[in-house]
């Protein structure tokens, strides 16, 4: 080194020290001492390729992008001739590099075996070619791969001698070039002149070309194999990315193997290199094959199956594909959960919106889950929860006309967090850790349940506060299920005469007036106006042309509209009507019996001088009491049976549970009511028996009316006779002529006959009534519903009917139950024994 150079170095060093350190002098001294102490040594000239390899692997361990950038920069650098000491600068940069360097051997993704090139004849030393940059061609290295020994060939295999002979070096190079081209999908044919091992190797590499062509075909829109829809496009684009990576690695391979001296580029090396891409392309092609003609969630499920593959490489490949292709799904999902909108031009989303559904059926019919589109990483429950959440949001907006966004945005943030990892794949800090995708985290479930909770609480809040849900529920129960006793009784009293007329002569407006009068007179007047405004009278004439009385067609109606129409749709109204009809009927019969008792009590006082009717009257009275008790028990049962279900419903409503839960509970409450009113589909048999009993009771009422009329007429006659006698005596005439006496006798005889007939009627009636009641009790006791069994017990708690009928002895007794259980048990044991013997 001459002095001028030394001086320049010194000034530069000084500058450097000034730039770096606060104490430039001491730093300068230090630097000088280092430089002088080592400048004597001969520098070990570094191999450029090795250096590049090191830098590349170092960068690749952090991020594949950086490595690629470095490759580009390096190529440019190589082309510029300004820099003379390229190697020196690069090694300086490497040495100064911040990240701790790992041992180089573990970082070579495709470490090439230390093959001595057999007499290359070009003077390239074995040591320089042994570490060629081929190892840097990590294909698709952006997924951090496990660094295991499985990827490096055992070193003793390196002694294999390549079949290609040294003297046909050029042939081998041609082979290699052909093979690389074949791997890129260029169609070519193996020359027959090649040795067999070379042909075998070539065939193996050329398989890459075949796989490549399959994939190319798959992503080609013209081929028709491409999956449809956005998610399909996601899959195609991610396959395209994989292919691009593949092309890049092919290009690098080509540049290093086929150009220049060819380094260690033998066919066998290319074959070793081809292992990894071969594996990857094979699986890609397989996944693509199974994804043919699928779309949406189906496609996702199909790819998701590969995620569970035991091979780590396949698994990570499938995860990458799945994450790419489910991104549109995630977007749709977030949009649906937050805004209730479906933007699904290709029908890929697992929630379907049906057009032409009226607003009152929106909750039930508008949206539904497409079962086959639910991706396999999502449970059915989750899917239905997602459906419910979006539905609530839509419902809030459409039916409740509530545009105001909720103030609590935590769930929104949570859902947006799900979108985040998509934006920054890799995670930067922990490159070794797998990126956890949205579809496999609990974050999704949490986000959905948060959103679900918020949406349902908001919906129920709106329904309860603005739409008086609880008031309407209570009103249904009070007026349609006759829980408001004073009102019902008063209404019935007022309506009695009107409803006894035939149905054709009834008019709704008259009845409405009566209803209003009943409301004014009872506690119903304290109901809020939005409840009273909905209470109406309606007549439901039968279509079969029967001569109906007003009782048969009259019904109360509670009209709900708006958003609440969802909770009380038309089907629900029909059930309420059926319940009302049945309950009203029992109530009316009870009312009639009470009326009969009143008539009886009035009549009773005038019967002092008519001892011949006492027995009959007493009998009728007893039977009436029996029937009354039956009616009472029936009503009590039908109210009490549904009590718990109603309590649950109200509790759920006040807890702001989800609307679907409320609907289910409401249904359950109605079911309980129906069962106890015996109009449920499981109690059809009972319904007919109950109908018989009720008809009999009505017959008793009309019987009593006839009897009372007859007795009153007779009493009238006798009173008149007495008055006539008194008048005649006052006039001084004979009070009673023989003609009169004969007439009186005749009349009494007729009356006696009348009483005898009635007595016979009553006997017939009593027999048939008891028979019907017995059957009803028997059927009730045999019913599977426990509360109906208890009703049977309640109807006959004093064993009155049981004593009268032997049929009832069996099912009502403890022994019967026990016996039947024992019988079941014995049968089961027998069956078990039988199977054991076999």
């Amino acid at each position: 080194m001459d002095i001028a150079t030394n001086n320049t170095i010194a000034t530069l060093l000084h500058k450097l020290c000034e730039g770096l350190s606060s104490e430039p002098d001491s730093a300068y001294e230090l630097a000088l001492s280092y430089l002088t102490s080592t400048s004597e040594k001969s520098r070990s000239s570094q191999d450029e390729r090795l250096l590049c390899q090191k830098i590349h692997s170092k960068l690749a361990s952090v991020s594949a992008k950086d490595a690629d950038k470095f490759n580009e920069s390096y190529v440019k650098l190589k082309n510029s001739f300004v820099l003379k000491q390229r190697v020196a600068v690069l090694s300086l940069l490497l040495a100064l590099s911040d990240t701790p360097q790992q041992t180089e051997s573990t970082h070579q993704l495709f470490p090439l075996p230390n093959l001595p090139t057999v007499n290359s004849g070009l003077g390239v030393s074995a040591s320089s070619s042994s570490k060629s940059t081929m190892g840097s061609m990590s294909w698709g290295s952006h997924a951090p791969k496990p660094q295991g020994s499985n990827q490096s060939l055992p070193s003793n295999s390196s002694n294999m001698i390549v079949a290609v002979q040294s003297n046909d070096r050029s042939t081998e190079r041609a082979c290699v070039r052909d093979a690389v081209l074949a791997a890129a999908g260029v169609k070519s044919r193996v020359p027959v002149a090649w040795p067999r091992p070379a042909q075998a190797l070539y065939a193996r590499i050329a398989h890459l070309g075949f796989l490549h062509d399959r994939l190319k075909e798959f992503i080609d829109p013209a081929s028709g194999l491409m999956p449809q829809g956005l998610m399909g496009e996601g899959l195609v684009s991610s396959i395209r990315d994989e292919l691009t990576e593949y092309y890049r690695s092919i290009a690098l391979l080509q540049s290093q193997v086929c150009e220049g001296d060819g380094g260690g580029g033998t066919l066998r090396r290319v074959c070793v290199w081809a292992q990894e891409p071969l594996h990857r392309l094979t699986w890609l092609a397989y996944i693509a094959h199974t994804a043919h003609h699928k779309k949406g969630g189906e496609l996702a499920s199909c790819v998701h199956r590969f995620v569970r593959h035991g091979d780590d490489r396949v698994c990570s490949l499938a995860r990458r594909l799945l994450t790419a292709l489910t991104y549109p799904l995630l977007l749709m999902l977030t949009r649906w959960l937050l805004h209730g909108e479906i933007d699904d031009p290709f029908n890929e989303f697992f929630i379907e919106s049906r057009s032409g559904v009226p607003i009152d059926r929106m909750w039930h019919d508008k949206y539904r889950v497409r079962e086959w589109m639910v991706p396999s990483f999502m449970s059915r429950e989750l899917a239905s929860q997602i459906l419910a959440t979006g539905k609530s949001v839509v419902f809030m907006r459409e039916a409740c006309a509530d545009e105001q966004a909720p103030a609590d945005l935590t769930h929104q943030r949570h859902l947006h967090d799900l979108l985040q990892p998509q934006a920054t794949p890799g995670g930067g800090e922990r490159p070794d850790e797998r990126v956890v995708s949205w579809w496999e985290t609990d974050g999704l479930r949490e986000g959905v349940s948060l959103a679900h909770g918020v949406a349902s609480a908001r919906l129920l809040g709106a329904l309860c506060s603005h739409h008086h849900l609880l008031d309407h529920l209570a009103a249904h129960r009070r007026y349609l299920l006759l829980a408001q006793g004073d009102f019902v009784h008063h209404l019935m009293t007022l309506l009695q005469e009107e409803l006894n007329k035939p149905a054709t002569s009834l008019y709704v407006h008259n009845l409405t007036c009566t209803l209003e009068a009943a409301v004014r007179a009872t506690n119903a007047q304290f109901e809020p106006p939005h409840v009273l405004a909905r209470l109406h009278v309606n007549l439901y004439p039968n279509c079969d042309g029967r001569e109906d009385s007003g009782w048969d067609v009259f019904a109360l109606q509670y009209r709900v509209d708006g958003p609440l129409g969802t909770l009380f749709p038309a089907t629900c109204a029909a059930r309420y009507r059926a319940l009302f009809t049945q309950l009203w009927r029992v109530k009316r019969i009870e009312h009639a019996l009470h009326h009969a008792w009143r008539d009886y009590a009035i009549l009773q006082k005038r019967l002092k001088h008519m001892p011949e009717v006492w027995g009959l009257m007493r009998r009728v009275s007893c039977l009436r009491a029996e029937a009354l008790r039956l009616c009472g028990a029936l009503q009590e049962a039908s109210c009490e049976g549904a009590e718990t279900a109603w309590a649950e419903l109200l509790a759920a409503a006040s807890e702001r549970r989800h609307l679907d839960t409320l609907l289910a509970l409401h249904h359950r409450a109605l079911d309980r009511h129906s069962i106890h009113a015996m109009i449920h589909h499981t109690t059809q048999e009972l319904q007919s028996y109950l109908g018989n009993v009720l008809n009999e009771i009505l017959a008793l009422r009309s019987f009593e009316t006839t009897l009372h009329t007859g007795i009153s007429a007779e009493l009238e006659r006798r009173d008149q006779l007495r008055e006539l006698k008194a008048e005649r005596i006052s006039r001084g005439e004979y009070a009673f002529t023989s003609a009169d006496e004969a007439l009186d006798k005749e009349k009494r005889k007729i009356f006696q006959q009348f009483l005898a007939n009635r007595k016979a009627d009553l006997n017939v009636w009593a027999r048939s009534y008891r028979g019907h009641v017995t059957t009803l009790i028997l059927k009730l006791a045999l019913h599977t519903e426990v509360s109906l069994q208890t009703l049977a017990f309640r109807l006959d708690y004093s064993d009155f009917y049981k004593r009268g009928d032997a049929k009832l002895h069996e099912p009502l007794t403890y022994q019967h139950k026990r016996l039947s259980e024992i019988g079941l048990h014995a049968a089961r044991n027998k069956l078990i024994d039988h199977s054991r013997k076999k």
Partner: protein
Amino acid sequence: MMTSEKNAQISQARETFQILYQISQLLSTGLDTETLTICIRLCELGVDPEVLAHVIKEIRKMGEATVHDKPANLQV
């Protein structure tokens, strides 16, 4: 003729420097443009890069040590 050739050379040199600076950033060497320029020139003059790297690291360590020492001195 000469000037245009020179211009071309300068622009090429600048380009090369940009590339090197990019690589330096990628490797996060922590060198600013000025220091990098000096280092490249030193290397061009034949200074052993590894020794140079060692020197730079040492100087940096020294700077860190003084920074760390200062609060300790204040406490005493």
